[in-house]
C-alpha cells in the first residue's frame, strides 16, 4: 500500500542566486518499507525529506500522504499530520533541556490530546522500554549520553504511533556502536510494527542494510 507519494516535485532557492535544488522528483513509499536516501552534501536529499515531511511547503509538484493530497493544505492541517502520522529523528537530538526524559517523550502526545495524561505517561514508559531507556525516564535530558539522547528522540518520534518515521542523519553524530543500536531499533520497528522509515544518511553501511536505497545527485534521483 502506498503511504507516501511524490509527483514531479521541484524546488528552487531564490537566494542568493536562482538555484534549482530538486528537479522533477517522483517517488513512492509503501507501508512497512525501510528506505534510505543517500547522496553527497548539497544534492538536495535533506530538502527532499523536509518537503516529504510537510514542513517545507515552498515547492511545485504534488505530494500525497495516505492517498490524500497534501500540497496546498493549511499549516494547521499539516501540523496535525506531522503530529499524528510522522515521527522525526534528527542528527541532533533536539530534546528540550528543561524537561525530563519522560516529559520530552510525552510532549507530542499531549499536543495531540487524544489520551489522558495518565495514559500518555504509560505509553511513554512503554516506548522508553522498547528503547531500553525506561530507567532514565525521570532524568533531565542533559544528563544523558549522545546515544541515549538519540534513543529518547526516537521514543518521542514513536509516542503517537505514527505511520512513518523520518530521519535526517539520525546516526550522523553517533559512534558506530550507538549507530548500530539505532539501526537495529529502526529495523525492529519496521519489521515488527510494520512502520515505514525514510532515513537520509551518509553512512554507507547503514544504508546497505535497508530495504531500498535512493541515490540522489544534483537534485535528481539516480537509481
Amino acid at each position, binding site marked *: 500500500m502506498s503511504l507516501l507519494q511524490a509527483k514531479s516535485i521541484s524546488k528552487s532557492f531564490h537566494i542568493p542566486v536562482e538555484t534549482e535544488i530538486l528537479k522533477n522528483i517522483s517517488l513512492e513509499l509503501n507501508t512497512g518499507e525501510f528506505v534510505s536516501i543517500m547522496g553527497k552534501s548539497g544534492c538536495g536529499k*535533506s530538502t527532499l525529506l523536509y518537503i516529504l515531511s510537510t514542513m517545507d511547503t515552498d515547492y511545485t509538484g504534488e505530494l500525497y500522504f495516505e492517498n490524500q493530497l497534501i500540497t496546498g493544505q493549511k*499549516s494547521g492541517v499539516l*501540523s*496535525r499530520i*506531522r503530529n499524528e502520522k510522522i515521527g*522525526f529523528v534528527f542528527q541532533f537530538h*533536539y*530534546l*528540550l533541556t528543561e524537561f525530563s526524559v519522560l516529559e520530552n517523550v510525552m510532549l507530542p502526545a499531549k*499536543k495531540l490530546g487524544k489520551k489522558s495524561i495518565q495514559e500518555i505517561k504509560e505509553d511513554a514508559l512503554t516506548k522508553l522500554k522498547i528503547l531500553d531507556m525506561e530507567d532514565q525516564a525521570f532524568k533531565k535530558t542533559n544528563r544523558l549520553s549522545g546515544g541515549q539522547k538519540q534513543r529518547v528522540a526516537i521514543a518521542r518520534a514513536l509516542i503517537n504511533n505514527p505511520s512513518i518515521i523520518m530521519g535526517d542523519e539520525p546516526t550522523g553524530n553517533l559512534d558506530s556502536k550507538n549507530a548500530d543500536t539505532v539501526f537495529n531499533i529502526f529495523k525492529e520497528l519496521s519489521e515488527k510494527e510494520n512502520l515505514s522509515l525514510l532515513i537520509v544518511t551518509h553512512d554507507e553501511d547503514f544504508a546497505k542494510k535497508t530495504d531500498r536505497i535512493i541515490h540522489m545527485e544534483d537534485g535528481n534521483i539516480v537509481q
Partner: protein
Amino acid sequence: MLARKKQTIIAALGVTFGIGAYIIMMSFMSGLNDLLDNLILNRTPHIHLFNEVKPTKKQPIDFDSNYNLTLKNISSIKPKKQQIKIHNAIPIIDYLNSSKKVKSITPQVKAQAFYLGGSSQLNGILTGVIIQQEVAQYHLNDYIFEGNSMDLQQNEKGIILGVGVANKLSLKMGDNIQIGTLRGEIFPLKIIGLFQSGMTEVDNLQSYVNLRTAQRIMGETNDYITDILIKLHTMKNAPVVARELEEKFNVSALDIQTSNAQFDTGTFVRNLISYAVSVALLIVAGFGIYNILNMLIYEKMNDIAILKATGFSSGDVRWIFISQAIIIGIIGGILGIILGYFVSLLIDRTPFTSHAIPNVDTYPVNYDIKFYIVGICFAFIATYFAGYFPSQKAGKMDPVDIIRGQ
C-alpha cells in the same frame, strides 16, 4: 520553556520596578496634590456670599423711557454709599438652612482694623467667627499651633492671631494686643491662640475673634453679617447655586470654581506630569521584556523547531511566548504593587516638616486603590504587547531553516 530563570527574573524585575515606581510616583504625587488641594479646599467655601461695593447697574436715566432709544453716556459713575453688611443676612441664613443642597452655613463678620503694638500700626482683618463651625467645616484647628480654638467661643476678649502679626509685634500667647478700629476706637484683646496658615499674606493680616466681638468692634448689632460661607453636599453644584442665590437675594456669590480656577489647572498639570513619567517608566519596563523575549527566541530556536516538527502549530508556539510574557507581567506586576506599597509606607513615615504647612510632619501619600489597579492592568497590557511581537516572530519561524542551519 520556563527554565531561563535568570532572565525571567530580570524581566519580571523590570516590570516590578516599572510598576513599583509608577505606584510610588502616583501615590506620592497625588498625596502631595491632595495636600496642596486641601490647603485651599479646606479653607475655601463652596460659595461665598458677600455684599460687593459696585455702582448701581440701573442708573437714574434708565428709568426715564424718553431716553430708551438714545445712546446714554454717563461719565464717572461712582458707587453710592452702601453698607458692607449683607442687608438681608438673617432671611438668607433661614433660607439656606432649609435648603437640601446645603451642608453647612458659616456666617462671618469681616472687620478692617489695625494691630497696635508700641508705636507701630499694622493693617489687619479681624474675622468674627462662630469658632466651632470654622473648626468643623474649614479645619481651622489644623492651623492653630498654639492655644485652644474653643476658648474663643466663650471669650469675647480673646483673639487668635496670625503668626506673621505676632512676630512683627513680638507678641506671644497670653499677651494683650490693642486693636484699633477704623472709627478710632481701641479694643484691648488677649491672645489666646496663634495660627499659621502657610500663606504669608494671610498670616500677616488675618486674625480670628468671636463673632460678637467683631460686631462690637464694628459698632454694630447682632444681625450684622458681612460674609456667609456655604458648603454644599456636592461641590460641582456651586456655580449653579451661586447664580441662584445671587438672583434671589441680590448679593454677590462667588463659587469655588471661579475663585480657584488656577488651582484646578495646577492640579491637572501636576497629574498630567506624573502620568507621563509613570507611563514612560512602564514603557521602559515593557521594552525590557521585549528584549529578553526576543533573545529567548534565538536561544530557543531549536526547541521551536522541534515543537513545530512534532506538530505544534504556529499558534501554539505564539501562545507559549505570549503566555510567558504575561506570566512575567503578572508576577512582575504583583511584586511591583507590593514594592510600591511598601515604599509608599516608607515615604509615609519619612519626616517632612514645612513651616508653610504646620499640621504635616511626614510626606503625604495617597493609597488610592485606583493606582494599584491601573498598575496591574498596565503591567498586563504592556507585557502582552512586549510578548506579542517576539511571539509573532517565533510563530513565523520555519523549522526547516533552523534545522538546516545546524
